Structures are given as C-alpha cells and as structure tokens.
C-alpha cells in the first residue's frame, strides 16, 4: 500500500483491531491500542524522515483515481502536513498511555484511533470532497468520546459540540459546492482537486464562498464568537479526549485556512487580512478575560486555548514568512502545552474527582512533581521565553507587526500580558494557597512513574522548541512560502 | 336539464356527501361508508361518460372501479374488525397512536 494511504489506514485498522480484541477482554483492547498507537507514531516519524532530509520543502503526492463529478482520491504531504500528523500520532500515544489505568471498554481506545485516522486524512487530503469526508469523520469518534466517557453533563456537551461543528461544516460544504459549480460553469469540467481549483473565477459570489469557508473553519479554530461549544466540550470530555480535542481538532480549523482557503483565494485573503487580524485580537483578549473569570480548571484551560489560537490566527493573517511559520509552530506548541495541562488536570480529577479552583490547596507540598510539571506547563502557556509558547507567539506577533498597523501587535501583546493574570492566580489557588475545609487535596497522591514519564517527554519537547526553535521553524517554513504576500 | 347535467349533479352531490361523511364523522364504519359513497359517485360519472362515448374502455373502467371498491371494502372492514376485536373501539378520534 502506498505510504500516505498507509498513514491514515493504519490507525483505522488499529481501531478495528481494538474492537475485536475487546472480545478478549479490556486488557487486550488496551494492549492492542498501545500497539496501534506506537506503530502509528513510528509510521508518522518514518514518513517525516524523507521530508526532513529534503529540508521541509518536499511534497509527496499520491493517488489520482477520479470518480463521478470529479471527485478523486488525491493525497499529498509536505512539511506542515507531516508535522501535524506526527503531532497527532504523538498525542494519540500520549493519550493511550495516560488513560492506561482507566477501566473503559474497547470502544474508548477505538475512538482515539479512529479520530487519529480521520485527522490524518484531513491533513493529507488534496481533493476537497475527500477533505470534507475526513473532516466530518472526525466528529463521530469525538462525539462518542464526550458522550459516553465524559463527566456529568456529557450528553448535552456532546450534542452541542456535534451540532455546532456540524453546522459550520455544512456552511463549508455549501461554499465548496459553490466553488466547484463555478469551476464547472467556467471550464465545463467537474473537479474537486485542490490544485485545479486554484484561480477559479467566482465573480460576485467570491466573498460569500470565502465567508462560508471561514465560518466552517472558524467554528473549529475557534474564532470568537463561534467558540461557545469549546468550553462545554472540554469541560465534559474525558481528560485524554480533551487532549485530542485541543491538540488535534482545533488545528484542523487553522490547517483548513492555510491549506484550502488562503491558496484558493489569495486576493480575498489579502483583503480580509485586517478582519482576520481583528478577530485574532478579539480571540486573544476575550479568551484571556473569560479565562480570568473561571472557577473550573478545565474551563479555564479551554478559554486559554481560545486565546492561543488567536495568536495562531495572527500569524496566519499576517501573510509574512515569520508569521506563517510562527502560526504553524504555535499549532504544534499548543498541542503540546495544552495537552500537558489537560493531562495534569485529568490526573488531578482521577484522584480527587473534582476540578474546581477552590477544591484544592497546598498541592505543592503534597504532590511536588505534579506541582512542578503543572508550573512548567503553565509557564509555557503564558509565553515565558525559553519555553515553546514564547517562540510561537513571538513569531506570530512579529509577523503581524510587519504587515499590519501596530495596534494589532499591541492587542496581541496585551493578550500575552493578560495571560499571566489568569494562569498564575489559578496556579496559586491550587498549589500554594492553604487547603480549605472541603478541600480534596488529601486524596491527591503524587504522580507515578508512568505519568512522570509522559510529562517529562512533553516538557522536554517544550524546552527543546523553546531554546532551539531554529530547526523546527526551518522545517515548517518552506510549506508556507506560497502564502507569503 | 339534460341527462348529463343531472348525472353530474347527482354524482357531485353524492361525492360531496361521501366526503362530508368521511371527514366529519368519527365512527370508523361511517367514514368507511363515506369512502364507498365517493367511489360510487365517481363510478356514476364514469358510467355516464361510457354511455356517451360508447367506449369499451370506459365500461371496463367502471368494472375496475367496482372491483377496487370491493377489494378495498374487504381490506378496510377486516382492519376495522381487527381493531375492534383488539379493544380499540370504533372511534377514529381516539386512535392517535400505534400501539403494539
């Protein structure tokens, strides 16, 4: 089987194998999931090697079978796609490892692998119909993850998540249909191929098509005001589910902008850039302000995700090479940092079954390693230089400072300033403040070896990207050169 | 008044009466009678047309309508009987849900 197809089929086959292994018992399903995730990560890294050797500029394409209405099976991978696939694979393995002690049925593991498969498909697809199919396919496993294995309000959160993102995707489908129809009207042929659709004359419908795509991708990114599903979904999802949601699914939205919207309509992209930058500013500041008001740890991190994706959007809207590279890098950073934070909250919740800010206290004394890693991840999240968050935010803002009036950069920096205002009081409340009478701190034992290993891996990557980002940026930048204005 | 207009008037009146019975009555048998009346009225109109045109196909149509009415009577009455035997009564207004 051709390599790129293997990449997305492998986790799907793993999901099926997990379901089958579930017949033998929960332990068997778990082992099968670990094996599948590990082999998927190996495959993703192997696929990364030739691209690394070529300096990130190579593009590998395959497929080409065309069916009715010009729908074809076309996959391609460049530096950006392979990095995101590697991130997906890594996070899947991390999720499997982090959920190791949970007593869950085989479906749980299958959902993660199916989600990974569908996300990989999104990152690989170059035919827009195929892209849409994979895009929608990510909703189903996530729906089940939230709805079946989540917290108290899981049903409601799952339905809200599904309806919201589905509505956005329908708008995206409408826009894609309009695009393909316009292409048919102009040249007489039906095609859904991304490359062929570039430069389609759209006439007066062009802004609507761009808006439809923006709304579809914007629900996923999420762009305020389309963000309302995120807080509930994150709060109710199981911890590992939140990691995949934040680490993989949010990236799909921005990836869609970079891969589909911007290359298809470069003129409109330039015209809409100030609007996008303004939306990014709103994201950064609104997300930070909302996060300051939260009393639930997961909700707080969810709103901080919104703020971080605002920085990614700054970079994407800037149209400069450092902004775009920063946007891509920040996608990876956010997956690692927010993933680590959600995992830590998950570990807390597993022990204490609560996650409110006022439910703990003095954990720095009782659980020093938990406290250390949580502090590390928090500092990365608020953009402390030397850790990965700063590099991404810095490059994105440097990009927007170059191509937009300074007020946008100022708004971005304000977002960075406010991030300390929501993160540090929360850290203090959980780890430093004395434990109140109803506190659950007594139940919180420190991390065990498996959990520490996972977090050392994540924190090590954060430190690496923060101190030596040159290699990472150099790998991501060539894929985005075509978008530089 | 010509025969045609008389036939049309009687057929129309019968049809209207049948429709009224179907729509306004709540008893199943009464609604059923209304349906039969509508069919008979339509049949009457077709008979008149057949007579006017001396068309064999029209006469065949009459026979078909009679057969359809008979078949429909069988099926409908057996359903009504079934429903009655199952204790559902004969009131269409009370039967708003399928049960079991």
């Amino acid at each position, binding site marked *: 089987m051709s390599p790129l197809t293997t990449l997305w089929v492998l986790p799907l086959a793993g999901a099926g194998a997990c379901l089958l292994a579930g017949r033998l018992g929960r332990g068997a399903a778990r082992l099968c999931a670990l094996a599948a995730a590990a082999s998927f990560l190996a495959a993703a890294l192997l696929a990364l090697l030739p691209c690394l050797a070529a300096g990130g500029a190579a593009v590998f394409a395959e497929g080409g079978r065309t069916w009715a209405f010009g729908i074809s099976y076309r996959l391609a991978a460049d530096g950006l796609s392979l990095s995101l696939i590697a991130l997906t694979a890594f996070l899947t393995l991390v999720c499997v490892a982090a959920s190791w002690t949970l007593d869950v049925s085989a479906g749980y593991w299958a959902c993660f692998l199916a989600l990974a498969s569908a996300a990989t498909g999104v990152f690989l697809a170059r035919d827009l119909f195929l892209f849409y199919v994979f895009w929608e396919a990510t909703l189903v496993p996530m729906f089940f993850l939230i709805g079946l294995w989540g917290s108290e309000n899981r049903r409601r959160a799952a339905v809200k998540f599904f309806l919201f993102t589905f509505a956005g995707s329908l708008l995206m489908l409408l826009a894609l249909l309009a695009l393909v129809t316009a292409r048919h009207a102009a040249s007489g042929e039906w095609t859904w191929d991304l490359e062929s659709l570039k430069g389609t004359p759209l006439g007066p419908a062009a802004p609507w098509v761009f808006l439809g795509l923006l709304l579809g991708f914007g629900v996923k990114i999420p762009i305020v005001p389309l963000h309302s599903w995120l807080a509930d979904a994150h709060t109710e999802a199981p911890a590992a589910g939140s990691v995949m949601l934040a680490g993989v699914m949010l990236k799909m939205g921005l990836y869609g902008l970079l891969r589909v919207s911007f290359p298809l309509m470069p003129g409109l992209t330039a015209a809409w850039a100030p609007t996008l930058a303004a939306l990014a500013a709103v994201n950064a500041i609104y997300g930070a302000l909302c996060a300051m*008001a939260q009393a639930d740890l997961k909700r707080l991190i969810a709103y901080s995700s919104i703020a971080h994706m605002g920085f990614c959007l700054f970079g994407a809207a800037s149209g400069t090479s450092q902004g775009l590279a920063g946007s891509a890098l920040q996608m990876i950073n956010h997956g690692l940092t927010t993933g680590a934070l959600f995992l830590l909250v998950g570990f807390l919740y597993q022990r204490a079954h609560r996650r409110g800010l006022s439910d703990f206290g003095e954990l720095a004394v009782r659980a020093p390693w938990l406290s250390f890693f949580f502090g590390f991840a928090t500092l990365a999240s608020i953009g402390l230089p030397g850790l990965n968050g700063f590099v991404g935010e810095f490059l994105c803002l440097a990009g927007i400072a170059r191509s937009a009036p*300074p007020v946008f950069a100022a708004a971005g*920096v304000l977002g960075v300033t406010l991030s300390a205002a929501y993160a540090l009081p929360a850290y*203090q409340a959980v780890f430093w403040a004395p434990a109140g009478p109803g506190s659950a701190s007594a139940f919180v034992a420190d991390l065990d070896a498996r959990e520490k290993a996972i977090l050392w891996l994540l924190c090590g990557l954060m430190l690496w990207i923060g101190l030596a980002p040159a290699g990472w940026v150099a790998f991501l930048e060539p894929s985005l050169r075509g978008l530089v204005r | 008044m010509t025969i045609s207009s008389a036939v049309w008037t009687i057929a129309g009146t019968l049809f209207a009466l049948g429709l009224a019975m179907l729509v306004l009555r709540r008893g199943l048998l009464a609604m059923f009678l209304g349906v039969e009346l509508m069919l008979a009225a339509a049949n009457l109109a077709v008979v008149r047309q057949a007579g006017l045109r001396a068309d064999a196909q029209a006469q065949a149509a009459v026979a078909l309508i009679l057969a359809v009415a008979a078949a429909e009577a069988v099926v409908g009455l057996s359903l009504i009987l079934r429903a009655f035997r199952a204790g559902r009564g004969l009131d269409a207004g009370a039967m708003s849900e399928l049960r079991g």
Partner: protein
Amino acid sequence: MSHVAVPLEAWLLFAAPVAALLIGFFLMRPLAPEKTHWPILLSCAVVTAASLSLAGQVLAGRSFDVNVWRWAAVEGWGVDFGLRVDGPGAAVLAMVAVVGSLIHLYAAGYMKGDPGFSRFFLVFHLFFLAMIGLLTANNYVQLYLFWELVGLASYLLVGHWFHKASARRAALQAFLVNRVGDFGFLLALLLLLARYKVARFHLLYLLVAAGRHEMLPVIAGLLIWAACAKSAQWPLYFWLPDAMEGPTPTSALMHAATMVTAGVFLLVRSWPLIAAVPGLPVVVAWIGAFTALAAALIAGTRKDLKRILAYSTVSHLGLMMLALGLGRVGAAIFHLVVHGFFKAALFLCAGNVAHALRQPTASVDEVGGWGRAMPLTYASFVVAALSLAGVWPLAGFFSKDAIVDAAWERGGLLAAAALLVCAGSAFYIFRMLLLTFHGARPEQKGLAAHPHEAGPGLAAPPLFLALGAAAAGALGPTGSRLVFSGLRGLPVGRLGGDLVLNLPGDPALPAFSWTTALLSAAFAAAGAAAAYRLTMADPGWDWRWRGGRAEAVLASDFGWTTLMARLAAAVAALAGFVGRVLDRAWWDGLLESGAAAARGAGGLAARAADGRLNDYLWWMTAGAAVLLAGALR
C-alpha cells in the same frame, strides 16, 4: 565569520550555573537537599572569577560582541543569540557576581533549617544565571528572554513562603506589574523587528546614528515604560515594597542590587535610541527625580526595616534614572555598581536583625539599642549607611556627587530635587541606624529580645559588602575607566561584522567640583542632623506623629497604592463580567435559546402530525382542493 574568539570565561559564565542547577536539581535535591548549596557556591566562585577576569580584559581593551547561535530564522529574517561584553556590561557583571556570591554565602546560613532550602537555592541560582544572561545579551530578544526569566525567579522567590497569603499576593503583584511593563518591552521589540529588521544592539546603534528614526518615539517610550516597571519607578514602583515578603537574601540580591537594576541597564543599552528622540531623556530625568524624592520622603516614615530599605532602593533607582536622563550614562552605571554594594550590605544587616528576632522581618518597634549586642552587624551597617548618605571618602560620595553635579549643571528644579534627595537619603538612613542600634526608647522592645550575632556565616558577608561599598570609591578612577573602556577609543565596525562599537553618551565622569561637593555634603548633614534630632534628642517623636491623616496618606504612598488596587479590582470585575455574564449568560444563552426556539418550533409543527385521522383528512381535502383549483385554472 567572526574573527573575535569568545574567551573561555564567557562560556564559564553560563556553563558553571547551568551545571550547578542540573546537579542540584537531579542529584542533590532528591538525595541530599540540605547540601544543594555546595555545587551552587562552587559555581558562584567560578562565575566571580570569570567575570572579574572579563572585566580585566575589557579594561585592557578586549571587549567583544559576537553572535554564537541562530535562534530562529525564516527566509530573509532571523534572530541570533550572542554575547556582548563591553564596559557597562562587564562593570555591572562584576558587581553582580561579587555581590551575588556573597549573598549566596549568606543565604546558606540564613535559610538553614527552612523546609524549602533546596528549592530556594535552585531558584536563587536560576535568577543568578538569568541575570548573567541579561547582562551579556547582544540583542533585544535575548535580553527579553532573560528579563522574563528574572521576573519568574522573582515571583518564585517572593512567594517562597507561599503558605502566607501576603507572600502569595506580593509575588503575584510583582509578576503582574512586571508583566504590564513587559507589554512595553515586547511591543517595542516587535516594532523594532518590524521596522528596522534587526534586534542586535550595535546594528541598531548604527541605524539610528545613520538617521533611521521611524517609530522611535513610540519604541523608546515603550522601553522606558518597561524599565519603570522593572526598576520600580513611578507609576509602576509599588510592587517593590510588597516584594519584601520574600526572604532577606532575595531582597538583598534581587530587589536591591541586581534585578531592579535591569531596568536601568535596559535604558543604558537603549540609550542611543532614547537620546535620538528630542525631549525624551528629560522625561526620564523627571521620572527619576520625582520618584527619588517621593520615595525618600516615604522611606523616612516607614517602620518596617526592610520596607525602609525598599523605598530607599526606589529612591536610588530614581537617582540612576535622573543621571541617565541628564545624559550621564557613566554616572548612572557607577551609582548602580556602588549602590549594589551598600544596599546589599544594608539588607543583610536588616536580615541579621530579623534573624536575631527569629522573624522574617523586623519593625523599629521591636529593636533599639542593639549596637552593642551586634557589633559586626552594627559596623557593617554604619559603613554602608555612610556610603548611602554620600559621606566622603566612601564610594557613595563619589557616585552621588557625580549625579548631583550633573543635575547642578542642568540647574532648576532637577538640581533642587537632587539636593533634596541627598538630604532625604541621609535622613532616612540615619533614622534607621539610630532607631535600630542606638538608645532604646520606651516605645521599643529592643533590649528585651536579648539579641546577639548569629555567627560568621551571617555576619561576614555584610562586612565584606560594606568594605566594597567603601572601597569602590578608591577604585573610582579604575572603575570609571572600566565603564568607559567600551565607550571610546575603539574602532567603529562595519555593518554585519562582529566588531565592537562605541556607545554614544557622555564618556567622562564629571570632574570634581567643590560647589556641588559642599552643597551635597551640607544637605546630607542637614538630613542627618534632622534624623538625630527626631530620634535621639526627641525619642518619642517617631511614634507621636502617627495615627492621623498624614500617616494614612503616607502609608498609601499618597494614595497611589489604593488607586492601583482599585484599578486591579476593576480589571478583575471586567473579566468577571466578560467571562460570566457576556459569554456564559448572554452569548451562550442566546445560542442555546436558538436551540430552545428550534425545539419549540418543532413542537408546534408536531401538532400537525398528532396521529388523528380526522385532522389528516381535513388537510388532505384542503390540499386536494388547492391542487384542483390550481389545475383547473
């Protein structure tokens, strides 16, 4: 590439602390936490030797500015990290190394028995490393990196005793206020990169000198804002007095000698940019003068020993800003170095006093007449206090005189302010000296506590620092040569080459002038006399004037701290509104009401399909009639 080799000492400056931190964190902390300080003290020694050696090299003319590593780069744009060791940097680095090492030694004794001993030392040394990185940075991005790291270390150290609510609050306040200042730094950095394409100091100096001035007022203004936060100038100074919640070694090293001077150092590095904007240096001078005067006044009224010293630090930082604003870069750096010595000595003495009471800090109510019981501490304090007050021939005299001279040359209100600050400094430090170490007053409980010296580990370092505070004056000429060796007489390099560059600014320390020397001595004497009168001749005065409106106003720094508290509460209220009302209740509620509306509409529509046969028949009839009418038309 570069034909200037980076000397070994520069690598050691970083390698030693990093090694000490790794050994401390991975080996000592799990195995023998009470011995965490051993690798760290060793590293301090190495760093001190290296920095003194580098200072010697700079004095001999071998400054350098070399890129060592590519941090991030895209097509046509990149940020490199490198090392810049020139006059100002080497001078401050030498001070930081010596003072820092002595305070590390002191901390080993002071923090003994503290449950967080290991954590304290690791964070303390992280701060030390960050400060070294800040002083040797050769571009703004690298400086920002270490600047924020220093802020992080400050947060962790002020909040060291985190079970205390006041410490938590102070740590958070310190970090957030510094972050507000960093808004300026980061934005300035982004604008510099956007408009000038480079962040490296010497390239920017060349560009600005060549006439490129786009957005320079904004950029320079933002950098001044950042310096005001870090160096505790008005309006962002108020975090510093509260930061005294941290252990004394923290206060001595960070909030007196080194971290707070980072702001002044930033302005020194940015001076060509600031000086290129007409009218901006005067703003700096006024901020400095105003802060110096107000802080000196407030310092004279505080009762907590560490807080008196904190306000004194704010005041002296103001003096440094004043010197900078008047264009005397050299005088500012000279005072920075000397201040580091005497302020650290004073803080360590205050720490000894508190340690004798077995408390984290001491108030004038709890001491009194301790001069005889703690002779070594007393001696260190006296020398350092005299240096602070600017008494000849101690170092403080020379550094303060340089600033007063510059102000006098300027004339007007700034000169008056400088002289009044002299008087104020002498007043508050003599008040502190006399209240703590001389003649117990009935309001004080001093002698009942039976104080005694804690031991060589705590008594020796302040002694050495005081010696430094005294002797730096003897090193005056050498010191100024060091500071200015990077400033003149060296060739201007080509753009893009790794060569040393001149830092514009007035190269020489002002020549000694009898007028200013006598004036400042007179004002200082007046201040000291007032202190004597109000503490020894009228012992109860310090307690009598309290309790009224005046004290309330002074306690809240003329209302500024209350204003800032209200501002912070307003921001929190805004966040609460946005997060809870706007987002959750209004917007989310609106969307969910959409769902509710859909459900309602569905319910309405469902009524048409209620399962009743007769209704269906009506609908069928109506529909058939409509279709028939349409067909027959």
